[in-house]
């Protein structure tokens, strides 16, 4: 599909490396430790992380080649995330 998954969180690159090694993930992980981009996307969940840290709420965006959002998924419950199949379907539909 040519759509690349990119995972973004407040984790540092070292924490992401750790996660990638443990879970065997090979896709791109980006670190936003000060939640600047997370704030720009207006998806900050204040004080919800470890030790009251500000984290991203779970959210998924499909961005096309022109930088336009083609699909998004905003859960209301942090336990309920987009499933891989949902994202693949959205990516396929947007072609």
């Amino acid at each position, binding site marked *: *599909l*040519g*759509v*690349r*998954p*990119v*995972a*973004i*969180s407040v984790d540092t*690159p070292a*924490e*992401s*490396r750790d*996660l*990638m090694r443990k879970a065997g993930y090979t896709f*791109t*992980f*980006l*670190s*936003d430790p000060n939640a600047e*981009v*997370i704030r*720009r*996307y*207006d*998806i*900050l*969940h204040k004080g*919800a*992380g*470890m030790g009251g840290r500000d*984290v*991203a709420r*779970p*959210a*998924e*965006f*499909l*961005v*096309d*080649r*022109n*930088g*336009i*959002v*083609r699909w*998004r998924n*905003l*859960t*209301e*419950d*942090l*336990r*309920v*995330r987009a*499933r891989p199949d949902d*994202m693949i379907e*959205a*990516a396929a539909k947007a*072609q």
Partner: protein
Amino acid sequence: MNERRFNWPLWAGLALSVVAVFSYAFFFYRFPITRDVPWVSYILLAAAIVLLIAGVRRAFGGGIGRKIVAVVVAAIGVGLAALFVASVTVFSRVPTGANIPAVGAKAPDFTLPDASGKPVALAQLLAEPGANGVMLVFYRGYW
């Protein structure tokens, strides 16, 4: 009668409510089918409450000591169930923002370090040969 008999429904009810909570946290949470709507946990908790009620009724045929133990144990079990329901409903609500990029809107560009510390820009990912877009997955991160 039954004065000295072990109140098994009571203790089984407590054990089952503990099992229900821990089995979700350490097992059922891993699978969307038993996580998104934690139906297995709800069934286990409902069974636990039935046992706890049976245990309390049974204790009310006995002395004051047994009654107090039964009520306290049942309260702990029901409390665990209530806490569980609250955590998977009220406590897992996420706030919603008014300025979240909408479908059809431009996704704000950014540059962030990847896992090796190398800066990566959204524009750069989109411009890669053969790239047909990216799926940005924001997640809560380590805890």
